[in-house]
């Protein structure tokens, strides 16, 4: 995507550093709980509070989750990695350093295939993934002259997933984040909940004239929704273009995005130049992964979104776009597959029709109700039942829409609704024949006109017959029989 400026077109260059909270019971280097929302400083051990003489011991689950995520990102797993200390002072950083990985991360380069809204795909490079400690929380609104410090988050394991600067538009960044979130959720390594902060993004934005070298980038810290990531990139890119076009230059700096004001601004508290003085943490030895463990984790990986998408296209004959929509969440994909069902190793129901119902009517209804697929008022089995009624001509597609609405309301099975409301399609030729005769008799003038060449009136007769049967007549039969009568 190019942005038009006064001096021509500009290209946006985006790289993302995503902090994803690892799903584990205990913290990265201590035995305290990672649960969300405890009373202040209750999920804090003496290690997390950096009491004198306290030492870190690594949690195996966090290591395995990082490896799992790395494998899910098609990335290099480094069998030897090293924990470093990143030294800086901050109120919510009790040790005075964060234990992180700097020169030798646990995961190296990888690649993520992202799905664009137009159905196309793009590959975004992963630079690295490393494990590090989260900081505590500073609360500024409890007291006029003091900040309050809660260390419950202090020491919780984070994966920092760094992309290459491969994204060229806000939409690509959004698609990347969406895909990354889907992958970690499939893997069960992070819940991907951006609202609760278990996934947050630092967004690196620069602009350049197409073909030029990379421009100076600014880092927008801690953006906590995909929508805001898009907005922040757009706004930051325009700010940079304006400065450059006015003859200025971009300072490499850390900025904050203010969604209310629709602007980015420099962070005040981090103005001083940082010198983190990274060095290997002498309290920890190198992290050595047995090859067998990596193999074991690899063997236990679930089917990931890309594989699932490929299978949906191949096995069910879905369009790539529909497949991508369905695999975005594991639960959606599973729901779809349950609707389709299997019989003798083959799809039991028409996969395309199922996909249309799931991605169309059902998703629209869920969206409207603000519900997740797991909370769907219509179960997969029930939706399958509805589709069966269409397939065996019990009801028409049009009646099906009506039944679907009723199912949403009542939660009843489609067959019961059809039965109760007498919506069964009329396929009795005698009954249809009688209705056709009535319509023809009542509309002799129009019959004449039709026979005189006004072909378009055919639709009128179909409509009249359908109306007369309360929509229940089989439309194909109506068509066929009408033609015989009028044309014959």
């Amino acid at each position, binding site marked *: 995507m190019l942005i038009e400026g006064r001096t021509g077109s500009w290209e946006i260059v985006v790289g993302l550093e995503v902090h994803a909270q690892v799903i584990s019971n205990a913290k990265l280097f201590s035995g305290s709980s990672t649960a969300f929302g405890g009373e202040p400083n209750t999920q804090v051990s003496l290690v997390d509070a*950096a*009491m*004198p*003489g306290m030492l870190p011991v690594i949690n195996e689950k966090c290591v395995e989750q990082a490896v799992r995520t790395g494998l899910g990102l098609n990335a290099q797993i480094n069998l030897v990695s090293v924990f470093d*200390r990143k030294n800086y002072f901050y109120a919510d950083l009790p040790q*005075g350093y964060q234990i992180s990985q700097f020169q030798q991360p646990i995961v190296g380069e990888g690649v993520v295939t992202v799905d664009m809204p137009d159905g196309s795909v793009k590959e975004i490079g992963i630079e690295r993934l490393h494990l590090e400690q989260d900081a505590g929380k500073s609360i500024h609104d409890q007291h006029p002259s003091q900040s309050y410090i809660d260390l419950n988050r202090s020491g919780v394991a984070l994966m920092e997933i760094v992309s290459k600067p491969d994204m060229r538009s806000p939409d690509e960044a959004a698609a990347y984040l969406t895909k990354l979130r889907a992958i970690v959720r499939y893997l069960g390594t992070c819940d991907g909940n951006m609202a609760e902060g278990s996934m947050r993004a630092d967004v690196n934005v620069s602009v350049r004239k197409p073909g030029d070298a990379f421009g100076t980038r600014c880092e927008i810290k801690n953006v906590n929704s995909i929508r805001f990531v898009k907005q922040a990139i757009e706004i930051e890119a325009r700010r940079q273009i304006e400065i450059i076009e006015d003859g200025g230059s971009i300072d490499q700096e850390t900025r904050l995005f203010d969604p209310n004001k629709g602007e980015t601004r420099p962070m005040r508290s981090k103005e001083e130049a940082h*010198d983190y003085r990274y060095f290997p943490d002498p309290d920890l030895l190198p992290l050595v992964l047995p090859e067998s463990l990596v193999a074991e984790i690899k063997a236990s990986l679930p089917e990931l979104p890309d594989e699932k998408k490929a299978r949906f296209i191949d096995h069910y004959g879905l369009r790539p776009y529909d497949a991508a929509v369905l695999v975005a969440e594991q639960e959606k994909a599973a729901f779809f597959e349950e609707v389709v069902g299997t019989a003798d190793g083959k799809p039991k129901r028409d996969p395309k029709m199922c996909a249309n119902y799931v991605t169309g009517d059902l998703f629209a209804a869920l969206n409207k109700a603000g519900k997740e697929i797991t909370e769907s008022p219509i179960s997969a089995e029930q939706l399958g039942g509805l589709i069966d009624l269409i397939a065996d001509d019990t009801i028409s597609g049009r009646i099906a829409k009506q039944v679907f609405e009723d199912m949403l309301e009542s939660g009843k099975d489609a067959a019961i609704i059809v039965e109760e409301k007498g919506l069964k399609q009329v396929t009795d030729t005698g009954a249809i024949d009688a209705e056709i005769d009535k319509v023809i008799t009542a509309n002799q003038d129009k019959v004449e006109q039709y026979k005189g060449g006004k072909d378009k009136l055919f639709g009128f007769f179909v409509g009249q017959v359908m109306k007369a049967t309360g929509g229940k007549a089989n439309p194909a039969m109506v068509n066929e029989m009408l033609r015989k009568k009028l044309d014959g």
Partner: protein
Amino acid sequence: MSHSELINLTIAEARDKLARREFFARELVEAHIAAMDATRPLNAYVTETAEKAMEAAKRSDDRRDHIREIGGSCASMEGIPIAIKDMFCTEGVPSTACSKILKGFVPAYESTVSANLLRHGSIMLGKVSNDEFAMGSSNTTSAFGAVKNPWKRADDAADLVPGGSSGGSAVAVASRAAMCATGTDTGGSIRQPAAFCGIAGLKPTYGRCSRWGIVAFASSLDQAGPMARTARDCAIMLEAMAGFDPKDSTSVDKPVPNFEAALTGEVKGLKIGVPKEYRAPGMTSEIEALWEQGIAWLKDAGAEIVEVSLPHTKYALPAYYIIAPAEASSNLARYDGLRYGQRVSGANLTEMYENSRGEGFGPEVKRRILMGTYVLSAGYYDAYYRQAQKVRRLVSNDFSEAFQKCDALLTPTTPTPAFAIGENADDPLAMYLNDVLTVTVNLAGLPGMSVPAGLDQKGLPLGLQIVGRAWDEETVLRIGDVIEQQSGFNSLPAGLAKL
């Protein structure tokens, strides 16, 4: 037994006499509390816990009675009064690393090593002084003031330093105000004060004793160890202190041997390496002579002497003075006046940090934090810190090579005997040179021990150092014991009776 007899017993003797019910633990502890009072002018103790000690002694006697009734054996240090260096966090007892910045800090936890000692029946008399954050070789930088060596030059009334950083530990043991004391050794902090005060002190193999609950100075070098009057007492104490601790990632899961059983008095057939590079500049001729004497003793006892080379020795000290301050600068970042210790208020958070740390740390600590910050900072890391770690590897490799040819090394512990308080005070480099013969051992992570081997002409004690292979404290202790037997060293400071 009289107080004076009680406090002059070794741990091994006291243990056996307690077992034979010649006296009770409460008598032994009482005698040491009296000695603690009497030696107060030496300033070894920074926190005395006499009352708690007496209660503990009574409990110890009860335990002994109980075990006697049910049959069985007492814990290895049952009833033995000990001192704990202030670097160790002790539950409910102030633990300050002798720094103003930790003023008033009372931990809610007990360090693994001190907990192990208590579990083995020993009784804490109190906390003893050290150089602030264990940074020093004279125990003059403690926030509680300088500690005085009970030894004096024959011709001179000047107060001498006890060495450091475990000066309080060495003085408490030498002055009979504790039967033994814990020390920590980052560059020589057990061995140098042991040598200066005429006692034995052992720095174990890195990973032998847990660092959990010990205020960290330089994590990759720090190691706790025993300080006592004999090699045998060090063996007894080390066995009680040591052991795998899952809470310390650098603690190594190896069984703890019966160290006392290693003291066979036999060194026949052992190959003792003498590194030629340890004739350090500034080494006194008396120390060189003592070294020759030590070699002769071991030779007489049937050991084989081999000359070995540790070619990178001269680079060890400068490498140490990059690595240790670098780690310290980071380890000491947690002392920020926020969660514990002394806070000095400021207009904002940064000022609060700067004021708390500016006032809380003494000059030696500040100097090392500044140095450590510098060698890690952008642009200097490779030239200083990384280079120092490579040199550390070379120093370590030197030892590996030497141990192809010998079973242990014999060297002097220090280049000089104890110096007067105030000497070297304006010259940090001269002070740093105290560690020149000991830091190599920390860099390589090896066990090293200082045993008292004789007096110089002015009547000051001198120590010899034995360095062993990793995990071979047994050989180190055995050789130390043999040197003690040969030297017949009487570790009672001449001036002590006058206190």
